[in-house]
């Protein structure tokens, strides 16, 4: 076990963690703010990359390609939203349906299961070659980090607006929201669209980074997203109270996830077992609040204070 090989691998892991951090922020929006576990993302995590790569190959500008990828993700979110609100399908099932449908859509976008771009032929924003020994402004880590900061700033602003507040209220208490005149169906659809747009953007980054889009690249994405959300909350939850900082902690959680993953691989674990390990770790962390409530609950006074 050569410690240098681990250290050499860490910048790459951090870059991947950052890219998945955008995806994790999308998951955070549905999972924590809308209170919906949206499984669409397993499909969207390929759609964004597929659209981006195909647009690049047809000679489009990188920015146009990434914008189109984001738009494609939002359409996927719209589909899930319509399944859920107009057709009354439970959110989790609506997401699974879209995810399954997207598998075909992704194949049709790419024409086959895998499409690669040569990073020296195309003008890519990020690449795994741009981690070390490049000018700092071309460094993938910096570029993605700047992107995340901008995204968090925009999301922070958005969730402070009237529409943003109605989204938060919908996730917190739909009955109250409707009583206050909020169209909760619209709020849910909009939330799903924003979330999947972010996931697709992350996917577009990932496809550029690894140099290809693959129909299986989104498999288990939701678990990685949840892991990032949970790790971020567990590590930084006590100190980061502000909404922008919470989003930031999700991105940090994603980086931590990939750093730990890299360390685990370095220690020589059978990589076939990684997904099983991820699933178990996320399962345990998801159980913690439930166990806390069940076994360590403080007795609550019913009816509250008498001075109210």
């Amino acid at each position, binding site marked *: 076990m050569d410690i240098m090989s681990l250290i050499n691998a860490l910048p790459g892991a951090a870059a991947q963690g950052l890219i998945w951090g955008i995806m994790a922020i999308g998951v955070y929006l549905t999972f924590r703010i809308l209170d919906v576990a949206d499984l669409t993302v397993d499909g969207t995590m390929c759609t964004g990359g597929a659209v981006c790569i195909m647009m690049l190959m047809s000679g489009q500008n990188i920015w146009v390609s990434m914008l189109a990828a984001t738009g494609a993700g939002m359409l996927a979110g719209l589909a899930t939203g319509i399944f859920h609100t107009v057709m009354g399908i439970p959110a989790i099932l609506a997401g699974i349906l879209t995810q399954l449908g997207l598998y075909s859509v992704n194949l049709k976008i790419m024409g086959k299961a895998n499409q690669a771009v040569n990073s020296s032929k195309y003008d890519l924003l990020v690449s795994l070659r741009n981690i070390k020994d490049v000018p700092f402004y071309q460094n993938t880590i910096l570029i993605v980090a700047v992107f995340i900061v901008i995204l968090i700033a925009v999301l922070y602003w958005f969730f402070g607006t009237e529409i943003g507040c109605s989204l938060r*209220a919908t996730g917190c208490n739909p009955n109250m929201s409707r009583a206050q005149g909020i169209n909760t169906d619209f709020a849910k659809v909009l939330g799903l669209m924003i979330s999947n747009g972010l996931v697709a953007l992350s996917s577009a980054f990932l496809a550029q980074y690894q140099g290809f889009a693959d129909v299986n690249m989104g498999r288990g994405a939701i678990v990685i997203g949840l892991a990032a959300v949970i790790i971020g909350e567990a590590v930084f939850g006590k100190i980061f109270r502000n909404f922008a900082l919470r989003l930031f902690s999700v991105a940090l959680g994603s980086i931590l996830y990939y750093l730990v993953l890299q360390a685990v691989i370095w220690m020589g674990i059978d990589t076939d077992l990684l997904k099983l390990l991820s699933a178990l770790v996320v399962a345990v962390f998801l159980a913690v609040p439930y166990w806390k409530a069940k076994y360590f609950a403080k007795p609550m006074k019913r009816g509250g204070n008498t001075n109210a």
Partner: protein
Amino acid sequence: MLELKNLYKTFNPGTINEKLALNGLSLTLKEGDFVTVIGGNGAGKSTMLNAVAGTWMVDEGQILIDGTDVTRLSEHKRAAYLGRVFQDPMTGTAATMGIEENLALAKRRGKTRFLRPGITRKERDEYRELLKVLGLGLEDRLTSKVGLLSGGQRQALTLLMATLKKPKLLLLDEHTAALDPKTAAKVLEITDMIVNRDHLTTMMITHNMQDAINHGNRLIMMMEGKIILDIEGEEKKKLTVRNLLDQFEKASGQEFSNDSALLS
């Protein structure tokens, strides 16, 4: 102000749990009426309020608010006309949002929401003044999460939210039932204060006969999805729990069998 015309609603039709909850209910409220609603469990009190609020659509009949037919209007659109406070203190507020944010949500009821700021500095000052009137010390806790408040505080806040934009009709669904007696009295006092100050047309469901008699200018009693007793004006002022029960027995032809209503 409010007209309910011949409302029918059946829950779970065609199943073993089929329940005729509204059975040809008709009621007309005048501007400024404060009606208290009593009746046993399953009499259709909450069903009536939910029908007005649009929680679901009625099977038959018509609902008019101030002459506007709202029978087929969705819940969030109807909210423009209504202020609502629920039995469960958890229902009326968003627990993970601050006091001021909850008020700001209520302030925008009935308006289209855009990308304008969700709350402005000017509003904060306004909310501080409004909260002072409650006398609960909430004016110093504007940014506190509502989840940290007691049940009574939350109900008082929900009342304020329901009336922040003057509603055409205020619907109170046993809003003191989950509170201890002292807190319930305080919330009722705040209710009276706000209703009188803003001259609100109000419907208040209660399990407590004495409260039903003490508050409002009109009292209706429901049974099996219909109104069986409607008392207002001078006659209501003279009511006692005893003769209310006598009138109930006369109107329904049976003993009043709801212990909670008798005991409270």
